[in-house]
């Protein structure tokens, strides 16, 4: 149908004009949707910059009349905010580094070595992946309690050091690395550890970046597990601390939003810088 119209100049122009109009509508719609997506973040900042007098005004003002850093200052003075931030950073980076090591190593072994029971173990591994964490809340708590981890940052780190999903992801990728490369290094006399460190890890960088980003974000934003195992404010991570701070300053939305903004903004900045990698990592991690 569309092919015959090539000689019909009028229709072609009309079609192009329609397409242009369509594109315009599309961009307008998208701008609106983008505003809906970002507006709440704007409101968060707006509240955070308001004074304690302005925040209780009804109806709320869209822009702070006299923007000030007072609420940020109050949060930093009243609460061990940097401590919480540091805890979150420490826990999330430790988990990420350890997970990257254990999962790449185990993924490599499952992909490239033959040993008795390998496939049976791998099938069990896949099955554990299907059981979601909230279902195992109680037994994991009891085990962490037996190990004496409760109310320390170790309680957040130790249960997260290995991920069945991570091993699966790494195995799938490393299986595609040519075995000849590994055999050649072996013939040259390279030790098993140096083959892992010098050949496998550099080649497996893309899925490791994905796994690292995924693991870090999950650890950074985790709430349920810290809620159960951490009791001291000093050992809190950011999400847990935010809810505590909220309960201490109910109705002081200026302070709560300032604290929330300080927790969210660093993540958003990192996200904007590494946008492409992070999006690909999360989509890949989900799609498996």
């Amino acid at each position, binding site marked *: *149908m569309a092919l015959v119209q090539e000689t019909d100049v009028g229709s072609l122009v009309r079609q192009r004009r329609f397409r242009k109009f369509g594109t315009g509508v*599309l*961009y307008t719609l*998208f701008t609106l*949707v*983008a505003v809906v997506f*970002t507006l*709440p*973040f704007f409101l968060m900042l707006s509240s955070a910059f308001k004074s304690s007098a302005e*925040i209780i005004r*009804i*109806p*709320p003002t869209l822009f702070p009349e006299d923007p000030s850093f007072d609420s940020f200052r109050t949060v930093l003075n009243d609460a061990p905010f940097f401590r919480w931030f540091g805890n979150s950073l420490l826990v999330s980076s430790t988990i990420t580094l350890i997970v990257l090591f*254990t999962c790449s190593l*185990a993924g490599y072994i499952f992909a490239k070595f033959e*040993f*008795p029971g*390998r*496939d*049976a*173990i791998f*099938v*069990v591994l896949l099955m*554990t992946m*299907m*059981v*979601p*964490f*909230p*279902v*195992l809340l*109680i*037994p994991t708590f*009891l*085990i962490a309690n037996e190990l004496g981890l409760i109310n320390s940052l170790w309680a957040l780190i*130790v249960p997260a*050091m290995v991920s*069945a999903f991570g*091993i699966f992801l790494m195995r799938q990728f490393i299986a595609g690395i040519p075995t000849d490369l590994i055999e050649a290094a072996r013939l040259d006399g390279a030790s*098993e550890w140096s083959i892992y460190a010098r050949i496998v890890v550099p080649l497996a960088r893309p899925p490791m970046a994905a796994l690292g980003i995924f693991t870090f974000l999950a650890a950074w*934003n985790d*709430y349920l597990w810290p809620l*159960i195992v951490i009791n001291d404010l000093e050992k809190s991570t*950011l999400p847990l601390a*935010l809810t505590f701070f909220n309960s201490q300053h109910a109705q002081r*939305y200026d302070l709560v*939003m300032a604290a*929330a903004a300080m*927790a*969210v903004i660093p*993540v*958003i900045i990192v*996200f*904007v810088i590494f*946008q*492409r990698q*992070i*999006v690909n990592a*999360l*989509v890949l991690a989900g799609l498996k």
Partner: protein
Amino acid sequence: MAALIGESVTREKPRARSRAPGHASRMRFVAISLIPILGLLVLFSLLPIGIVAWLSLHRYNQLAPTSPWIGLRNYEFAFQTDPFFRNALENTLKYAVVAVPANIVLSLPIALGLNQVKRFRAVFRTAFFMPVVASAVAVSLLWTTIYDPQAGWLNAFLNQVGLTPQPWLKDPDLAIWSVLAAAVWQDLGYNILVFLAGLQGIPDDFYDAAKVDGAGPWQRFLGITVPLLQRTTLFVVVLTMISYLQEFTHIQVMTNGGPIRSSETLVLYIYAKGFEDLQMGYASAMSIVLMGIILLVTLVQMRLLRSRWEY
């Protein structure tokens, strides 16, 4: 099955190879690396499954001296006696079941549009994805201020345009849906990008061939995009379903299950029973029920995925 085949293969091959130089050092490497890793997996992935099943058949309280075996009585109590379990189960199911179409209906058109947009795609993508990386707690606190009946922006906006303000999170009929809206706002960007990845995975040749054959835009959409997007859609459906069945954070922060338990989900109730009332046996039985529901959804997905389009 797979396990048996694997073992017979490994048993035959190494006979020739076992004398090969370095076999012992390879096996040492495997053992040294894998034993601690598998140990951790057993401790934190496998053992908990056994423990939760065991606990569900006992009356267990950390502080009590004994934990008597009570058979299936925890399950009986849940399904026959406990009105709060039924309430939490119903809330969880309606929350997850509504979340799926809400996510699809909103994310698919945006993804289809985004696939057409060439300029500024990165800008839009950033905007849509920002809520995904933010912490669920921060997002929940933010939406709590937006929903505030007096000082919140939503009611201020409704007043402005002449609509009736609502109590949102304070209203038993609206609370769970208000939380759901905030959760969907946070997750939508992720689903949009999964759909976008699915759309970009469809080869251009298909559309070109259809165009040559004279198919219009609608025919191309229904004949190519819809069937080839089935896998992605199914994936989004199942993933959304499973993650909303486990909802905890948004609800705990925004309503804590209230008002009058109208937004209490299973994980919230399991948490309350297990860690506040210390009835860990009963909470474990409810965990097993939740696990059963989630495994069912996963198995249905695997069945459906087996006979679908490949390209």
